[in-house]
């Protein structure tokens, strides 16, 4: 199709190799590095990287940071977070002659999440990453990813139960047909629970998505518990451009601006910052090479698999391939992404119980209208939503019609149905379709229960609320 909206893409068909062999910055030293169309010598290159990093750090300084902040660095051991650690250390260091310079960060904590439980066979990455952190004499917090099943990583810090979600097999053709109950969190070790959870999800795309949000939750909670007000993540521009496309493809457009932003305050007390966002992965690797850094190899769910293994993996392949032929791909995508913002109407209270990101209300209805699943001869299409709700929140409807039932529900906490149909974001809902029978970690159960309680309360006072739409 040659689209009506096709515009021109100015593509240099002949890749011109610069004829000048000297560095374009200092013009004196011989160039050794070629980045897109520019040549650099080693010194000017390093200077450029430091400059890009500092530019972002200065922004944080001016926006809302106080002097003497306590911050946390997420260190996976990959090239980007490795370089970030070095750059941040240099930035925060006060040399003896710089008496007037105030240290920006009073305390720096390094946090690593060990994902080896996911693969079972892989060796733990903990010790090797810990060694790196010790080189800088920073306190190190190492967390196995399965810790997400511990009550420590919930808002209250003491919520123990899990959320059992089952997918009604007899109605597998329906979207959103799941039943959720709060259940006891025992029997298995945390590691086994994580493995069971992942085994219950059939597609790699959904698994990868889950794993990332579990990690993010762990990081946020750890930062909170240790009193850090800022979390540094090492996303490079290459990584961010891949994320922009993959988040879009997974239906996460609504929360995308938050998930790729250089700085955001979505988690109020802990802000997330990405100071590496303007540096490409290639530049980072050269930088690391000059400093003689080794990477800690961390495998992912799709390592060694073909590109079509998952959306994330396919997108990576797509962007890296495009960047080779059209070297402005990454920068164009990140520039587009940076122009997007989260909608003003977004309400901090309404976040998805899984990914904790904002969600759009009414996304289920949206989908039911454009993907019709029934014909009117059977339980009619119009009737379907009520039908569906009846099976999911049987308890809720009955409990609210009879007061006696309500109190009964509070007593029997377990095996109580929780209505989760409206507290999932669109993308997590899509993910859930690939799950059969899973037990979600305590933080999800806590969110779900909290929201259910809020709704019940709301029902009691509903007639006194003034709706803007009226």
């Amino acid at each position, binding site marked *: *199709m*040659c*689209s*009506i*909206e*096709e*515009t*021109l*893409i100015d*593509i240099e068909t002949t890749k011109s190799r610069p004829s000048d062999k000297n560095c374009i910055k200092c013009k004196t030293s011989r160039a050794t590095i070629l980045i897109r169309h520019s040549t650099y010598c080693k010194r000017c290159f390093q200077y450029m990287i430091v400059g890009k990093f500092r530019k972002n750090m200065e922004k944080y300084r001016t926006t809302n940071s106080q002097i003497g902040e306590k911050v946390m660095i997420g260190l996976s051991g990959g090239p980007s977070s490795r370089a970030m650690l070095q750059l941040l250390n240099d930035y925060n260091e006060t040399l003896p002659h710089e008496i007037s310079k105030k240290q920006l960060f009073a305390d720096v904590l390094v946090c690593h999440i060990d994902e080896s439980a996911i693969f079972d066979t892989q060796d733990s990455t903990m010790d090797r990453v810990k060694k790196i952190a010790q080189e800088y004499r920073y306190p190190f917090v190492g967390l196995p990813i399965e810790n997400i099943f511990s009550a420590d990583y919930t808002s209250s810090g003491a919520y123990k139960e899990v959320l059992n979600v089952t997918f009604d097999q007899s109605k597998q*053709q329906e*979207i959103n047909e799941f039943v959720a109950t709060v259940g006891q969190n025992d029997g298995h070790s945390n590691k086994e629970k994580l493995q069971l959870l992942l085994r219950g999800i059939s*597609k790699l795309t959904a698994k990868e998505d889950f794993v990332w949000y579990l990690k993010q939750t762990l990081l946020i909670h750890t930062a909170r518990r240790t009193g850090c007000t800022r979390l540094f993540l090492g996303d490079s521009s290459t990584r961010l451009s891949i994320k922009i*496309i993959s*988040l*879009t*493809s*997974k*239906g*996460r*457009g*609504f929360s*995308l*601006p938050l998930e790729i932003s250089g700085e955001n305050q979505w988690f109020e007390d802990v802000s997330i910052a990405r100071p590496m966002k303007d540096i490409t992965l290639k530049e980072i690797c050269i930088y690391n090479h000059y400093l003689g850094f080794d990477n800690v190899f961390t495998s992912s769910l799709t390592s060694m698999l073909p*590109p*079509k293994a*998952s*959306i994330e993996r*396919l*997108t990576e392949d*797509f962007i890296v391939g*495009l960047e080779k032929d059209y070297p402005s*791909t990454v920068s*164009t*995508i990140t*520039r*587009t*992404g940076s*122009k*997007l*913002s*989260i*909608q*003003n109407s977004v309400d901090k209270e309404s976040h998805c119980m899984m990914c904790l990101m904002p969600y*759009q209300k009414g*996304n289920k209805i*949206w*989908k039911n*209208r*454009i*993907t*019709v*699943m*029934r*014909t009117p*001869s*059977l339980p009619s*299409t119009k009737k379907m939503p009520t039908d569906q709700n009846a099976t999911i929140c049987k308890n809720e409807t009955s409990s609210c019609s009879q007061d006696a039932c309500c109190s009964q529900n509070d007593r029997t906490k377990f095996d109580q149905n929780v209505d989760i149909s409206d507290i999932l974001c669109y*993308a997590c809902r*899509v993910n859930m379709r690939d799950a059969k029978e899973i037990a979600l970690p305590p933080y999800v159960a806590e969110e779900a229960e909290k929201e259910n309680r809020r709704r019940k309360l709301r029902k009691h006072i509903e007639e006194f609320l003034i709706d803007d739409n009226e």
Partner: protein
Amino acid sequence: MPRTCVICNKERASIKRPKTGQQVCRECFYYVFETEIHNTIADNKLFSKGDKVAIAASGGKDSTVLAYVMKLLNERYQYGLNLFLLSIDEGITGYRDDSLETVKRNQQQYDLPLKIISYSELYGWSMDQIVKEVGLKNNCTFCGVFRRQALDRGAVLLEVDHIITGHNADDIAETVLMNILRGDIARLQRCTEISTTGEGCIRRSKPFKYTYEKEIVMYAYFKKLDYFSTECIYSPNAYRGHARTFLKDLEVIRPSAIIDIIHSGEAFEVKREVKLPVQGVCKRCGYMSSNELCKACVLLEGLNRGLPKLGIGKTNRMRKKHGDMPKNTATIPQFLESSDEKKSATSIVEGTLQ
């Protein structure tokens, strides 16, 4: 073991629905396919009773199914629309001449009035001539820009209120990706809107916004609709090709990806501080444009002055070098000026308006 349809639980399933993976029978497939389009039309209040609506018909699968379904839904749900077929003759030998034959047959089959408007009459250049001049690179730009205007001009001649096009969910998802890839923030925001309206411009909608391309083909195949299925002989843009391959791969991994991308696209909001181009009117022909001159006028000027590159890339630099347009150069007739001009424009348009 033959499976039964998961929707009616009676008939044998013969289709695996691309959108959901459900195994359904033909009748149920028709039902959900048509109902989803009806829901899209109803929820977005696309039409009002008595509207005159032109279906942009190319003779390809999308527009053929669109014409068929629109006629069907119009009768089934009593939209009360007056439907027309509107075709553009780009002048591509071995492609458009054949597909126009299909449109003419459709006109008979569906009993709808047809109007054909041609590039050579509107612009003085057929696509064949343009390709001779500019080569195979960038020719799609000419074709795309010219078609957009030609459709609007055709709609004015037909005196319709509304144009509907056969853009499907795949096309829109691909456009969302393309606009991110080339950094076109203004279009990124616009491209998922189901209807576009501008000042002095005819409303244009995409009823197939949530309809999968594969299901359109399926529908056309089972309903034995008469459509033309050859790719354009002038090859399409290579960069867009990458995006399309990527989208098809995504669909293999997760069939809902196409809808998911549209969902993302609809949620995108541009930061307040980002400057967006302001829509105005072309000084030369009166068509809507975000620049002083609309793209079609610049491209046409380039063709007429023997400078085909004028509208491609560095227009200002070319202008400095070659000067402004000489007085006697042919231009596009004024858009929506007076009824006089409308008449004179009618005279140059061939077609079988019944």
